[in-house]
């Protein structure tokens, strides 16, 4: 593996859902790059298309949706050209995924060992004993005490945090190059979240695994990610190095998100919020989709803005930035 080829390079990805009420573009012109061992934070409100982006990469978009455009380059290979058979070999072995709700991701009627061993044996022809050994090691790796006994347990015998650790252990089983984590700590309390974040970060550094961390929690991104992509209504509105974006947001939406973090508020003052709500994908406003909620909106925003590249390498989709750059 050459160092120059990024683990994941998404270019102009478009995913549409063909519903009875018409085609909906859930992911529209999304591009980002994740290098080996890097963590990308994919941030946005509910319905901004971040989860669909994750599922698109794995080829697991539910009917009636499918990827309709762009490229997904995984270590240089375009996944959009993959057959279902090739995808099967890839899933769980080179790219794995952790889901949002740990209470729902494990099959309630199968034991943990069954669910772990099948993940190994789906990709490698190893004996059951060897697979069990690896499952045991993986459980130990994510900090589950007495993994030997826990292998024999059913999911309902674990707490939410423990189940999410098991899910991570399953994701790590085949030493993937990339893990897509879809809001994996949203359903957990903060202390468990902190532990899982810490361990995930450590594991990624040790193994060189790249991570796409989908979340709506900017504080998680701040502590974990190297780069960040902010999504709004299916589009990336701002992306760049995490420190640059969080310290000096250029897109009004990013600014609003950061302003909405409660800890930044003065005590007794009303909490800051972005007015309005996420537009329905069926009925996006013309031009910039954030226009109606934006305090800086002008007539120019009737036209959809294109992406402009700032001097620090940051990409922003906003007319104000475009103008500011053209005046320099």
């Amino acid at each position, binding site marked *: 593996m050459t160092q120059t080829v990024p683990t994941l390079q998404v270019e102009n990805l478009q995913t549409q859902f063909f519903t009875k009420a018409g085609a909906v573009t859930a992911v529209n012109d999304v591009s980002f790059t994740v290098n080996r061992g890097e963590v990308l934070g994919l941030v946005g409100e509910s319905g901004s298309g971040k989860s669909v982006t994750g599922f698109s990469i794995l080829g697991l978009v539910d009917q009636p949706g499918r990827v309709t455009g762009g490229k997904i380059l995984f270590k240089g290979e375009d996944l959009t050209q993959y057959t279902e058979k090739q995808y099967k070999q*890839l899933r769980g072995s080179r790219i794995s995924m952790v*889901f949002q709700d740990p209470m729902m991701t494990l099959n309630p009627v199968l034991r943990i060992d069954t669910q772990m061993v099948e993940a190994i044996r*789906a990709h490698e022809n190893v004996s059951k004993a060897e697979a069990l050994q690896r499952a045991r090691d993986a459980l130990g790796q994510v900090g589950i005490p007495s993994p030997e006994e826990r292998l024999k347990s*059913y999911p309902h015998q674990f707490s939410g945090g423990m189940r999410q650790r098991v899910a991570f252990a399953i994701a790590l089983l085949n030493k993937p190059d990339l893990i897509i984590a879809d809001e994996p700590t949203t359903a957990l309390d903060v202390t468990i979240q902190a532990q899982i974040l810490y361990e995930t970060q450590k594991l990624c550094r040790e193994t060189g695994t790249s991570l796409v961390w989908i979340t709506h929690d900017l504080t998680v991104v701040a502590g974990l990610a190297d780069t960040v992509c902010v999504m709004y209504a299916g589009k990336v509105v701002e992306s760049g190095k995490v420190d640059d974006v969080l310290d000096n947001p250029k897109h009004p939406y990013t600014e609003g998100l950061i302003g909405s973090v409660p800890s930044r508020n003065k005590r007794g003052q009303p909490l800051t919020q972005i007015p309005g709500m996420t537009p329905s994908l069926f009925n996006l406003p013309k031009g910039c989709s954030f226009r109606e909620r934006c305090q800086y909106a002008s007539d120019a925003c009737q036209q959809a803005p294109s992406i402009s590249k700032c001097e620090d390498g940051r990409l922003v989709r906003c007319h104000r930035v475009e103008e500011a750059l053209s005046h320099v």
Partner: protein
Amino acid sequence: MLAFTIRRLSQSVVVLFVMSIIVFAGVYAIGNPVDILINPEADIAEQEETIRRLGLDKPIWTQYGLFLANALQGDLGNSFVHNLPALDIIFQRLPATLELAFLAVGLAVVFGVPLGMLAGLKPDSVVGRVIMTGSILGFSLPTFWVGLMLIMLFSVNMGWLPASGRGETVDLFGIPVSFLTLDGLSHLFLPAFNLALFKMSLVIRLARSGTREVLLQDYIKFARAKGVSDARIIGVHVLKNIMIPVVTVLGLELGSVIAFAVVTETVFAWPGIGKLLIDSISHLDRPVVVAYLLLTVTMFIVINFVVDILYSILDPRVRLGGAN
């Protein structure tokens, strides 16, 4: 588990006791067996002699007390009509019904689960729609009519299968069974299929809705994200989850199939207990009716118990004898 069993047993005894009172009183209220049993030509002395012999001269609570005392010793009384122990008559007929019922439920599962899953996996396909339409027919067509049609088609027109009776039987542990001989099997098939049709439709619907529901669960998507093959997802992840409702419902249905196979048994002249019950009710043969119903209740209790145990095997979240 032990506490669960003991509690279940004591509950069962209460149920049986209450049940016996209701049935005893119920049959008493229907009519006087004397009117049917005794030859109207017989003289008064003869009539009184018969009434005394059957114990029908005593007040009803004394009759019940006697029945209860005997029942506790395992004697449910003699049939008024056949003058044989009621239980013996029932047990003589029971194997035929059991054989029929088990085969029917077996057919319902073996065909119903795969068909239902298929319809659930491809709900909008032609195959899925055909299966569902078929299941609606299975639900709505009356059993006796389907039975007559089966006889007409396969026995009368085609002449492939016999229309009535058990055919040749062989003894298995001293019990005559039909399914071990070719002739017996050919006699068994039509009534079993007739009886199975309704249950099969039920299983198809349960399996289909279960499959559709389970397919949407995160754990199925997670299994796909692990790269697990479709065959394993359907055959293990989905199947094991949908078997929970199927087993529950079939357990209850098995009881009703055994207890109320009356229609099918009548249409195919199958010498089982369903036929016996109808005859006994029309003769007001109280000991047989009471014994039959007590046996049926016992059977339901046993089946429910087995279902609860199966449940705990299928669904690890169910713990028997948990807190009340």
